[in-house]
């Protein structure tokens, strides 16, 4: 805002100082836990246990990260999560475009009904149990499909994509293409898709973050530990406190072993969150754009 051109009055100056103080406090409160986790993961296990870490790493060491990989479930969890995220997002994108594009065409008779069917699922849902029974009846329990299909489409993302298509692909263009003998399918593949790279990027981000972070589907539908995604492994190790210390053998005493078992939790948190926070600075503005497109009403 360019309200700064005129000199602030005394009370205004006080007010703006207050605002700066407030925002600085917010900044510190939000940032501190993240910095602390990172520092703790890079400190020596005994320093973390003794409470010597406050802001920066103390006795820098990578032992925690080494110990994380002694947990066999972690690497498998990483691989599973990568798989679910990649394949799940691909399915999401395909289905989202398949429904969002037709819904964006005014000549598509019945779009009102389909839109209603879509939005209604946001207002009312059958609930956990009926969903569980449906997945069970389909024979998908404890299979990778339970991680990919129940969330194959999300309404909010469809609305974002539809709004984008409405704004960027004019009705005249698709009509003209039709007159020239271009079929709807060919038009979608040759014209719509190349033009919608920005929105596809936004959708990929949104869906991928969802898959990477979700744990509840896995908790509900999976029972084989080989299929567990990373988030569920993290839950076991940190929240349920089941570190397998039998593999941490290169440590002298039992108490050192326990310290390491505690510290590897910090390292695991860093490893789970890192991929997302690393791309975050680059994708933030796309994410914001997606949110704003979605909030355009009709």
């Amino acid at each position, binding site marked *: 805002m360019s309200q700064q051109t005129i000199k602030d009055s005394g009370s205004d100056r006080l007010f703006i100082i207050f605002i700066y103080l407030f925002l600085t406090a917010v900044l510190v409160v939000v940032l501190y836990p993240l910095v602390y986790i990172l520092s703790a993961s890079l400190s020596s296990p005994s320093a973390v246990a003794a409470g010597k870490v406050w802001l920066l790493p103390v006795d820098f060491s990578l032992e925690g990260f080494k110990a994380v990989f002694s947990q066999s479930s972690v690497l498998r969890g990483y691989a599973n999560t990568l798989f679910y995220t990649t394949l799940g997002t691909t399915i999401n994108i395909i289905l989202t475009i398949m429904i969002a594009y037709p819904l964006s065409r005014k000549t598509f008779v019945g779009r009102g009904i389909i839109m209603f069917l879509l939005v209604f699922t946001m207002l009312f849902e*059958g609930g956990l149990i*009926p969903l569980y029974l449906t997945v069970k009846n389909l024979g998908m329990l404890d299979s990778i499909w339970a991680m990919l299909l129940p969330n194959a489409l999300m309404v909010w993302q469809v609305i974002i994509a539809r709004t984008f298509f409405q704004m960027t692909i004019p009705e005249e263009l698709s009509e003209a293409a039709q007159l020239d003998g271009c079929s709807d399918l060919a038009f979608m593949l040759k014209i719509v898709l190349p033009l919608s790279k920005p929105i596809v990027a936004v959708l990929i981000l949104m869906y991928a973050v969802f898959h990477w972070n979700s744990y509840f589907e896995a908790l509900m539908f999976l029972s084989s530990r080989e299929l567990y995604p990373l988030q569920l492994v993290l839950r076991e190790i940190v929240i349920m406190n089941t570190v397998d210390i039998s593999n941490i053998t290169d440590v002298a005493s039992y108490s050192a072993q326990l310290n390491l078992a505690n510290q590897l939790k910090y390292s695991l948190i860093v490893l789970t969150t890192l991929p997302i926070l690393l791309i975050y600075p680059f994708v933030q503005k796309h994410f914001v754009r997606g949110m*704003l497109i979605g909030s355009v009403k009709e």
Partner: protein
Amino acid sequence: MDTNRLPLQKNKSYLSNQLTKIKLKQIKRHWQLYLIVMLPLLYLLIFKYIPMYGALIAFKDFNAVDGILGSPWAGWKHFEAFFTAPNFWPIVNNTLLLGVYGLLVGFPAPIILALALNEIRNGIFKKSVQMITFAPYFISTVVVVSMIILFTSPRLGIFNHLFEFMGFQQVDFMGIPQYFSHIFVWSDVWQNVGYGAVIYLAALSGVNPQLYEAARVDGATRLQKIIHIDLPSIMPTVVILLILNVGQFMKLGFEKIYLMQNNLNLSASEVLQTYVFKVGIEGANFSFASAVGLFNSVINLILLLLANYLAKRVSESSLW
């Protein structure tokens, strides 16, 4: 008059006839679009509408052999059982308390942040605050709860290191029911305040600069500008988001609550959705759990409709 109406009516039915013809022609011409939309519709049918229909088992005594259709009807039995159960009121109370508390704190927080950010000049500081407060939104629920548990852990957590340092007794925060709602609500604010502020900031950037000019000429202070210009301009956005938030009221991040639960804090942390999960999926008591879940969904729908209705009455903005 009468002689005039007849041809008009004829005209009308002729028109509607033509309209259906045009529609049919459109459908025929765009048959590929209908083919394309089939797969997503199939998804909706299987994973959204069949479970809605499956909620019927709340009124049945479901057994796996007979399936949803074949199982015998039970009427309102499961609802009555739930309403008269000794844990009915504690669970409903917890759900309402966490929901209302979360809404009272979590809803205004991003508005305040956005208004504050809007006051300062565009620059590195503003960008940093925006970027850093938005970041926790991308962190998973499991990681956030893991962080809470590590920070509040009785012997090794940083809070207790701090308490120790200051000479206080150590506290097992997660084991004390009275603390549960505060930890839940404020960690949510930590995670979502920056995300929530984004939409309000966009709305604020659309405010006509002439309004500020005029206010300045009239000698308005910054606070007055916020109250008389900023707040009214973002009101429509506020109302819409409030309705959406109320619509999420009964869901209230139960995935997070479930992770934060332990045996010690259960008296404050058991909510409808976590109860459904435990009784239904862990306990395989499908019909009873569905009844509880359905109760939850219906209350949620009623709240949403009510919020939308009230918003329509009080202001011009509403969802539909």
